[in-house]
């Protein structure tokens, strides 16, 4: 058997990318809920990306003569307790919230994925890595966020660190589970036997065969990360004034629930929509990629 013969079948199929599987996008599009969720998320992401051009007002401009105005033609989402335009702050706040979610998913996914795959491939590391993962799992993200904020001060960085730390152990477990399945295949044993390097085996055969599982897990995780990030923002651990962030905006509005409920409810609704859309899309990805759910 030569090394070239390994580049066929199961191993090669995954190398072409998760979206390139036959009919993935078509099947996603057939799922109406997923399609709608995808559309909503696309609109939200575009709004966040082009925030400076889309936002009708400077999100930081205060006008104390216009505090707590309900939604009207001039300010579609009303104004907050310092007279800032809530729509503009929601657009900018969404950007920060999404960035936090993406940092949590990408960095946490990367570190967790590497840990899980290394724990599987190098059996001697398995015990150490998984015990570390167990320890990390023992701390809720909120607690980690509070600790990081206490040490380094509150801010977006503190929340990002907390989200990454909270994501890593879950991804590591998922990646390890997926990698264990792949390790059981003959081509891994064969690769070792013919002298394929560890690096090639880990990347080309192990990682690429686990990546769809990790990807689906992260899409499902994304909504949860957004929610945790917003909760940390709500508790004051996240963005500091005047930076807009959805959780913090909801927190600022809670003192005015009786007289100006829109200040808290609008950012809360936006968080709800983002999380719902992310979860629906994650479910759809799982349906598409998980062979057990395919008929």
């Amino acid at each position, binding site marked *: 058997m030569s090394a070239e013969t390994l580049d066929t079948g199961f191993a090669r199929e995954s190398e072409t990318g998760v979206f390139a599987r036959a009919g993935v996008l078509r099947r996603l599009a057939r799922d109406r809920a997923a399609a709608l969720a995808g559309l909503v998320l696309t609109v939200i992401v575009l709004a966040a990306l082009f925030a400076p051009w889309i936002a009708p007002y400077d999100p930081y401009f*205060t006008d104390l003569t216009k505090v707590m105005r309900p939604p009207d033609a001039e300010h579609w989402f009303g104004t907050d307790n310092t*007279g800032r335009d809530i729509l503009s702050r929601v657009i900018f706040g969404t950007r920060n919230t999404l960035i936090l979610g993406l940092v949590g998913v990408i960095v946490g996914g990367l570190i967790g994925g590497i840990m899980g795959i290394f724990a599987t491939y190098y059996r001697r590391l398995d015990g150490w890595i998984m015990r570390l993962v167990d320890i990390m799992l023992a701390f809720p993200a909120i607690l980690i966020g509070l600790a990081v904020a206490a040490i380094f001060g509150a801010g977006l960085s503190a929340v990002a660190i907390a989200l990454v730390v909270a994501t890593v152990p879950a991804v590591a477990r998922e990646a390890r589970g997926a990698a264990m399945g792949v390790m059981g295949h003959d081509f891994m044993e064969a690769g070792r036997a013919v002298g394929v390097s560890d690096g090639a085996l880990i990347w080309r055969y192990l990682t690429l065969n686990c990546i769809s599982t990790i990807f689906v897990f992260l899409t499902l995780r994304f909504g949860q990360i957004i929610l945790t990030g917003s909760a940390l923002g709500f508790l004051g651990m996240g963005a*500091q004034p*005047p930076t807009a962030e959805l959780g913090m905006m909801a927190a600022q509005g809670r003192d005015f*629930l*009786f007289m100006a409920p829109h200040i808290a409810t609008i950012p809360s609704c936006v968080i709800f929509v983002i999380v719902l859309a992310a979860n629906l899309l994650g479910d759809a990805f799982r349906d598409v990629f998980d062979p057990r759910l395919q008929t």
Partner: protein
Amino acid sequence: MIRLALGMSLALCVTGPATAQTLHLMKGIDAPHYDAQRTTWGPTSDIVNMFQDTLVALDWDGRTPVPYLAKSWTISEDGRTYTFKLRDDVSFCSGKKFTAEDVVYSFKRLKDPAIKAPYAWRAGVIKELRATDPYTVEYELEEPYSELLLQLTMFTNVIHNKESVEALGKDYGIKGADGTGPWCFESWQPRTEIVLKRHDAYKWGPSLYKNKGPVKFEKLSVKIMPEESSRVAAMMAGQFDMTHQFPPQFIAQARAAPMLTVTPAKPNFQLLYFGFKTTRPMVSDKRVREAMSIAINRAEIAKGVLLGNADPAFTIVDSDALDHDAGTRGIVKEDVERAKALLDEAGWKIGSDGVREKDSIKLQPKVYYTQAGNTPRVAEAIQGYLRRIGVQWQLQPWDSTIASAKMAEQDYEIWSVTVPYLSAGDLMNIYFDSRNIPTPNRMNWKDTETDEWLKQGRSALTDTDRAKYYALVQQKVMREHLWMPVLNINMDQVANKKITDARPHMIYQNTFYKGLDVSRQK
């Protein structure tokens, strides 16, 4: 509405039905203990004032000491010796008779270094206290102290029972404390409730009250409810009789509520200010400090942020407070264009991002404050104003448990607190004396003239002299723009309509004071 419902549920859970014999009070924050000599903590002061007494009481005007445990006094010509004649009909809750020895013991304990009393200075520089007979005390000072009588009204100068202090040891002020007040300490469940009972023998109420004692309720329960919405809901639901910590943003609703009465404490000296750490390069130039102070609109902040529950403050000492200097009124003149010109003049030029810079350093001062009360909202509003002149405040709120420690550090430029005070001398001796560097003189303001004038004011033998020296200090610190006075915060007492004769006092953010006249309609 969900919060209202939850708040009402919580309120119903934590309070039983109001009984005719129990007065139900409620507040948002508890104290670490109730030993008045070992704290500066406002939440200690209100309870202490209920169960312990001072030699002199503070009249409704907030500036006149009136006889209390001391029925009269004389002052020596050199202003160093006060001779107090004490009442002979006073007893502690334990039944022990109150005498001059209790006064001597209390002030000796206050000055004992082991106690580390943070407000010991309020009692003056004591040379010696002598009990010349059971009801006469000679209070001798090292140097005259013109505000001694006013300061003796403060909770830190209450009279303690030596037997109670020694019997309870480290638990004094926690498991109990004896006092001569109209109420007696019964129990304390930290962060939940403190219960006081009527002092039946009490009949020595000060002249400001119609009722000289005893109080009209058998018990007084003070519940702690940190959640603002719960406090609102509980008052609306009639679960409590009174509170002085009704969230200010809901005061309008309280005024409109048919079952509640809102009464402002007048006068009330509570200043919300931002102070500048003058040793930090970014704010060492007084032109920069003045620019920030005049670039804001205090009236808009009072109306827009505090919803009218505050008045704009253009001077550091309220115009109604003792020894306020009227000459300081024109020093802070809001003028955005002049603010910009001052910053230009000081060398801070607008950068490409709209933030001013000088020698490649951005004008982005760090601002520390406590993440509670009105300050966060006011800080954000000011941050908005200052962006317009190219100053970018970096707001750094801290949890109240670590805020004072953080503010004692040196790596920030500006801080904010809300400070209650009695008089110009009271406020300025705390903050501007160089002996109080680094805290509470967080400005690191070390100025020979200021120190000398403060000393002259403290030791003045006449009211005119005291006012003269304190006026000089006010002029100096205001012209240096060491502080940016922003708001004089109102303090409202919210009571159930059934509660009568509950005139709010102003002493140290404590509207209840002795509560001698308070009664409930049948």
